[in-house]
């Protein structure tokens, strides 16, 4: 009996740890696509400093909206991203589904549900001026990490006071996954995506797959 109780408590402890741990390189957004702007359930928060991020954007089309929607990840600096749709591998065409090609969702109709996987690769930034990395940048190695600078001026500023600039080489701030109707160019859904520093991602909202 003692062994059973011990294993029950062990399972509770390890499950609590797993349930409360928050993955910071992926998030799930839930939204409604509407002709007059749409709405996202909550902002999705990611921790800056990772190499790759994944946002699973699910949405439902609310009547009477129908049309085609272009999907864009907006923000400054620009991020390198790819969007994939969860279509069946072998489409038997039993039920019509909106088609996704070249970042455009075609033939969205009321009550359609969609799931897009956005894979984001953020650029490396100059920690002083926040310019996006280019080939001519110079490199400085410090505390096991590489930092890149657009000019000697930025490099000198950084070296004078590295603690002030460390962490700023990562993308931070607000981005938006926007769905634009291709005819009217009006947004039918805007999903906020926030990159925060380490330890600031507690309000990331519920994470689904």
């Amino acid at each position, binding site marked *: 009996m003692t*062994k*059973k*109780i011990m*294993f*029950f*408590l*062990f*399972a*509770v402890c390890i*499950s*609590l740890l*797993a*349930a*409360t*741990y*928050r*993955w910071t*390189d*992926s998030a*799930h957004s839930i939204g409604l696509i509407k002709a007059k702007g749409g709405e996202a359930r909550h902002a999705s928060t990611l921790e800056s400093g990772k190499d*790759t991020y*994944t946002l699973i954007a699910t949405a439902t089309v609310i009547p009477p909206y129908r049309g085609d929607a272009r999907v864009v990840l907006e923000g400054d600096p620009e991020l390198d991203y*790819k969007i*994939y*749709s*969860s*279509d*069946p*591998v*072998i*489409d*038997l065409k*039993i*039920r*019509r*589904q909106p088609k996704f090609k070249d970042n455009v969702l075609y033939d969205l109709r009321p009550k*359609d*549900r969609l*799931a*897009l*996987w956005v*894979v984001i690769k953020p650029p490396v930034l100059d920690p002083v001026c926040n310019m996006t990395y280019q080939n001519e940048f110079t490199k400085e190695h410090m505390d096991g990490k590489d930092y890149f600078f657009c000019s000697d001026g930025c490099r000198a500023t950084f070296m004078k006071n590295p603690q002030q600039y460390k962490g700023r080489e990562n993308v931070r701030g607000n981005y938006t996954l926007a769905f634009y109707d291709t005819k009217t160019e009006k947004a039918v859904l805007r999903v906020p995506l926030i990159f925060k520093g380490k330890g600031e991602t507690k309000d990331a909202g*519920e*994470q*689904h*797959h």
Partner: protein
Amino acid sequence: MPANNITKKSIFVRKRFWFMLIAALIFLPPLSLFFQFTADSNFCGSWCPRMFFVWRKGMTISAYLLGFLRSYMGVALVFGILGSTFFFGRYWCSHLCPVGSTMEGGSRLLPKFLKINYSSVPAPSFRYGYLAVYFIASAVGIGSLCCNYCNFATVPRIFGAAFMPSDMSYFIRSAGLINLGLVVGLGFIAKGGRAYCNLLCPIGALDAISNRLGLKFGKRMSIDSEKCNGCNACAKVCPTWSIEVKEKKAAIDQLSCMPCRECEKVCAKEAINYDKHTG
């Protein structure tokens, strides 16, 4: 003429592998047949069997009920599983679940020396500890086990990843890798391939309760103690380690047993049968 003592085994004993294979082919990529009837591509969405019954902190009753509507196929699946289990035992788990079938099938393909034997873990204790947190963590708002740790999301994507970048994307995330690790560690390299099912599947945990509650009303695996000689052969092949031999007699834990009937196959004394439970 000598009496023929060899009883022909049921199709559920002889052809279990085929049931598992067909279920996997129907449910999993590249075909994903059933999901296409509802414009889905996997268990996520209207087929999700694991989220609709979980109460999340701050949600209203209408939002809770809306979850049932949103996952209507998952609701039908879960109630179908629990209902059929009540009367016939856990045939969904043993013969039809494409996720469990994949893990068990994968385990069979791997050599014995790679396998981990989890049979020293008291499965019901661990399972219901996990299930308690599964419900409570969401209800009190401290986190969630629903989607972050889900083999129903992982296994179909293992197959889909070969074809679809979206399914491959699942595994470039930390959570996807952890899920893959759980499926491998508690599935593919587990002795019997069913440690995940036995310890971490919330549907399996609810199904086991239905199995136990319906004991007097339906058919279950049962052991004729008169015939049993305690040889332990049944316990060795049980993928859910639900058979224990004590004082030269085997006993089945109905809170873990699924009628895979592997024990029935190996019992030389024909002491194990799927029948109306007597005791």
